[in-house]
C-alpha cells in the first residue's frame, strides 16, 4: 500500500477533529477525499504532509514515516495560495528546481506554455484562477508517487475547473496516486477511481466510485447529499 493511516487521532485543544482514522490507499488510483466543510479533510491532509503532528496512531507513505523521505515522494498542493506573489513565474520554477530533486523544469514550462503565461509575469499580476493553474502546474511537474491536492478547484470558474481536471488527468502517471479533497463533487466525480467520505472526523465510506454508482443507480454527488443531509 502506498499510504497507510492507522488509528489516527487529532485534537485541537479539547475539540476532536479526527477520530480513529484508518485507511490503506493503493498506487495507481485517483482518489477523492470528500467531506463537508469542517469534516477534517484538510487536517488529515496536513498530517500526511507533516504540517501537523499526530496525537495518536501512525501514518506511513510507501513504508516511510512522515519526514524527509515522505516529503520527497509526496507532491502537495495546499488549500491556500502559498507562493510569494512578488516573484516571477521563472523565479518560482527555479526555486522548485532547487528545492525538489524530482522537479521537471521542462514539464513545468510546457504546462505553463499551454496557459499563455509569460514566465516574467509576477503572480501578483494574475487572477485567482490563473494563480491556481500555475500552482497546479508546479505540483504536477514533480515526479512524485503521491500527489495530494487540497481543494484544487476552490472558487474557480467552470472553464478553469475543466482545465484543472484535464491537467490532472494528463499528468497522472502509472504507479502514482492522486488524493484530492473537495466538496464540489459533481465536477470531479467522473475522474475518480475511488472515493472516501469523511464526516465529523470519521471515515464513513471508502469504495470504488463505479461500484457505488452501480449499487445505487445514483451519482456520488447524490449519495453524498443523502449521507450527509443537514
Amino acid at each position, binding site marked *: 500500500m502506498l499510504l497507510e493511516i492507522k488509528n489516527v487521532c487529532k485534537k485541537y485543544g479539547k475539540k476532536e477533529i479526527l477520530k480513529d482514522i484508518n485507511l490503506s490507499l493503493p498506487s495507481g488510483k485517483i482518489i477523492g477525499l470528500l467531506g463537508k466543510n469542517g469534516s477534517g479533510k484538510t487536517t488529515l491532509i496536513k498530517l500526511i504532509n507533516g504540517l501537523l503532528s499526530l496525537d495518536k496512531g501512525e501514518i506511513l507513505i510507501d513504508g516511510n514515516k512522515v519526514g524527509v523521505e515522505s516529503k520527497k515522494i509526496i507532491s502537495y498542493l495546499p488549500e491556500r495560495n502559498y507562493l510569494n506573489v512578488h516573484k516571477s513565474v521563472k523565479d518560482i520554477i527555479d526555486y522548485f528546481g532547487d528545492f525538489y530533486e524530482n522537479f521537471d523544469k521542462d514539464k513545468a514550462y510546457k504546462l505553463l506554455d499551454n496557459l499563455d503565461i509569460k514566465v516574467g509575469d509576477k503572480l501578483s499580476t494574475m487572477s485567482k484562477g490563473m494563480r491556481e493553474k500555475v500552482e497546479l502546474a508546479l505540483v504536477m511537474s514533480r515526479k512524485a508517487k503521491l500527489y495530494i491536492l487540497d481543494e484544487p478547484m476552490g472558487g474557480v470558474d467552470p472553464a478553469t475547473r475543466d482545465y484543472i*481536471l484535464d491537467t490532472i488527468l494528463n499528468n497522472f502517471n*502509472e504507479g502514482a496516486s492522486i488524493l484530492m479533497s473537495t466538496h464540489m463533487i459533481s465536477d470531479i466525480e467522473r475522474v475518480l477511481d475511488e472515493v472516501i467520505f469523511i464526516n465529523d472526523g470519521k471515515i464513513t465510506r471508502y469504495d470504488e466510485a*463505479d461500484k457505488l*454508482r452501480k449499487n445505487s*443507480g445514483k451519482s456520488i454527488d447524490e449519495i453524498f447529499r443523502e449521507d450527509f443531509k443537514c
Partner: protein
Amino acid sequence: MFSNDSPIYLQLFQKLALDIVTGKYKAGEKIPSVRELSSIYKVNPNTVQKALNELEGVDLIYTERTNGKFVTSNKKKIDSYLQKMAKDKTVFYLNDMKNLGYSYKEIISIIERIK
C-alpha cells in the same frame, strides 16, 4: 458526455461498442490507446482500461501484445453484436410501451403511422 449516475466504465464501453458496430472503428483497425481515449473522453485511464476489458470480454476487440488493441477482424462478431444492441433497444421500447398499456398490434400501428 457521461452521466454521473451509472458506472462510467459501462457508459464508455457502450459508446465504444457503438463506434465499432457503426464502423467508426472498422474491423481489424487499431483503436486509440488508453492514454488517448482518456484524453478524448476526459475520464480516468483506469476507467478506460475497464471499458476495454469489457469490450474484449464480448470479443469486439483483441490485444496484440505490444502493438495495442484492435477491432476484431471477424465481421460476423461485429454484426451479431449490432443485432444484439438492436434487440436490446427493441425489448426496452416494447417494455415501455407495454407499461403504457399498449398491445403489440397497437404498437405496430403506431410505428406504421410514424414511418
